[in-house]
């Protein structure tokens, strides 16, 4: 098939053509025979999962790059087609296993949109609270591992200290540290246990000081600044052309946040800032994520103070299990329970595409339903998949050490990339 011409969309694009995702060795260097192909294999010391980079090096300079993915392709989408809607909610969490509740959220929002079911406010606010805690959790893991790769090893231990506190909160509310499976179509699986809000408030007292600690560690460190400033430049136009979203897009100067532009859950009722930086380098992405952590703490604080009472799941008995006391007295409740548990609830026919702002960017879920108890097609738009497409563009004049910094700053989670 013919090779298309260079995608000349915007002025000054640095997309290495004609294949946008591959950095190709320039002809003059290839002729000089000085190029060495190195394989950063799927198992490597840096901690972002099974990504394979085939890198062409001219000395220390990266002149060619191709990313090979698929080492974690688990067939989520095909597996979810075999399960009923309720059972299928368990799967998405493992896709982006670092910000796990966002995947659940987007799938459950898609189901609720097709069902046209109304979620009670307590569930909405609680979902928002948990999702913002998940954002902090995801950024902490990113910061710990990215700093570890760049050599700031202490950061790992500091970040994981707070991360364990967040996981304690998840365990309190959902029963398990990761992959809580707490969201249900229609609300939450169970009511919030007593004591959670106090523990959450205690955590919020600690967190801002902890973020100050992290910044004190690296913000003025000469090595950190040298290694992250001016490295991995991605212009705003290229970022939009390559489909970037989330912190990568905001660090390139584009003021775009789905929580503000297309509010879901209760984001239009809380007050938060969206950090935007213009430089488009690794340091800007780092600053964006640090400030996002602070804003998430503010959102959780507001959600805690304004948490409404009331039911935690919708009342539609065709979709939601009836409370167990009713099963002894009401025949219809028993029938509903039986139908929902055995056959599963049926979601009306239709297709829907729902997006949320996950810590990595725009996480989308495209659901096609044929009116039956099982999904017909579920596709997840993973922001890390798209972020890896921009690797070649960021790597324009990078050294090997910058390669690590850049791939770390794109915050990819390979479970999401490969699904």
């Amino acid at each position, binding site marked *: *098939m013919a090779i*298309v011409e260079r995608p000349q969309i915007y002025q000054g694009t640095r997309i290495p053509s004609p294949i946008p995702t591959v950095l190709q060795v320039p002809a003059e260097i290839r002729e000089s025979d000085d190029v060495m192909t190195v394989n950063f294999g799927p198992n490597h010391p840096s901690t972002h999962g099974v990504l394979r980079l085939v890198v062409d090096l001219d000395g220390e300079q990266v002149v060619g790059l191709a990313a090979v993915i*698929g080492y974690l392709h688990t067939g989520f989408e*095909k597996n979810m087609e075999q399960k009923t809607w309720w059972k299928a909610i368990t799967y998405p969490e493992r896709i982006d296993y670092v910000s796990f509740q966002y995947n659940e959220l987007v799938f459950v929002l898609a189901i609720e949109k097709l069902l046209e079911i109304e979620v009670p406010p307590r569930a909405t606010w609680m979902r928002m609270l948990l999702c913002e805690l998940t954002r902090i959790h995801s950024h902490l893991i990113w910061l710990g591992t990215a700093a570890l790769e760049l050599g700031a090893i202490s950061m790992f231990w500091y970040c994981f200290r707070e991360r364990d506190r967040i996981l304690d909160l998840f365990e309190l509310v959902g029963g398990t540290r990761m992959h809580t499976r707490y969201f249900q179509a229609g609300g939450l699986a169970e009511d919030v246990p007593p004591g959670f809000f106090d523990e959450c408030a205690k955590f919020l007292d600690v967190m801002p000081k902890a973020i100050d600690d992290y910044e004190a560690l690296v913000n003025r460190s000469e090595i950190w600044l040298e290694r992250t400033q001016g490295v991995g430049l991605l212009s705003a136009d290229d970022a939009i052309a390559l489909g970037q979203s989330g912190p990568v897009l905001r660090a390139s100067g584009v003021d*775009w946040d789905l929580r503000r532009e297309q509010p879901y859950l209760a984001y239009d009722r809380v007050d938060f800032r969206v950090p935007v930086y213009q430089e488009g380098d690794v340091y800007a992405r780092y600053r964006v994520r640090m400030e996002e952590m602070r804003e998430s703490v503010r959102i959780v604080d507001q959600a805690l103070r304004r948490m409404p009472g009331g039911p935690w799941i919708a009342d539609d008995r065709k979709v939601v299990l009836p409370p167990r006391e009713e099963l002894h007295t009401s025949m219809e409740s028993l029938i509903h329970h039986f139908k929902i548990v055995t056959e599963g609830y049926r979601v009306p026919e239709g297709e829907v*595409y729902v997006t949320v702002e996950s810590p990595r960017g725009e996480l*989308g879920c495209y659901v*096609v339903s044929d009116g039956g108890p099982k999904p017909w097609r579920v596709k997840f*738009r993973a922001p890390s998949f798209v972020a890896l497409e921009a690797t070649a563009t960021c790597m324009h004049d990078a050294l090997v050490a910058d390669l690590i910094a850049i791939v770390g700053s794109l915050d990819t989670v390979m479970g999401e990339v490969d699904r």
Partner: protein
Amino acid sequence: MPEAARHLRDELGFDFLSDIAATDYLGWGGKSVSGYIGTPGGRDLNKPGTQGFQRLPAPKPKRFSISYHLLALRAGAARARLQVWVDDGDEVPTVVPVWPTADWHEREAWDMFGIEFSGHPNQARILMPEDWEGHPLRKDYPIGGEPVRFSGEE
């Protein structure tokens, strides 16, 4: 189709391609489904022999649909879905010159469904191993795996 894509990007301002989702509709409408009671397509329990399940989902024009989910990065977050319908073996012109991010999305659609994108610079397997045969997410591809053995049985 590339003209439609360019029109959407340039005139209507959808400069952000969110996702390319391919769907296989083989077997669509094979099972009749129930509507909700009280809705226009709801169950009619008085219709004999059907137990209320007489509604079939609306038939689809061809076997595969490719949905391009677009977003306009403006206030109001306008979203659009461009759907292209193809049969098995048909080719779809690539939109990589229009939205470069489509590169890997189209590779994934080829890998998972076998839909060819003509003019794609690098159409190769992306998620499955290079020497894999078959296109896994098609409806006639088995789920695979092993039968589960329980410890009680002999």
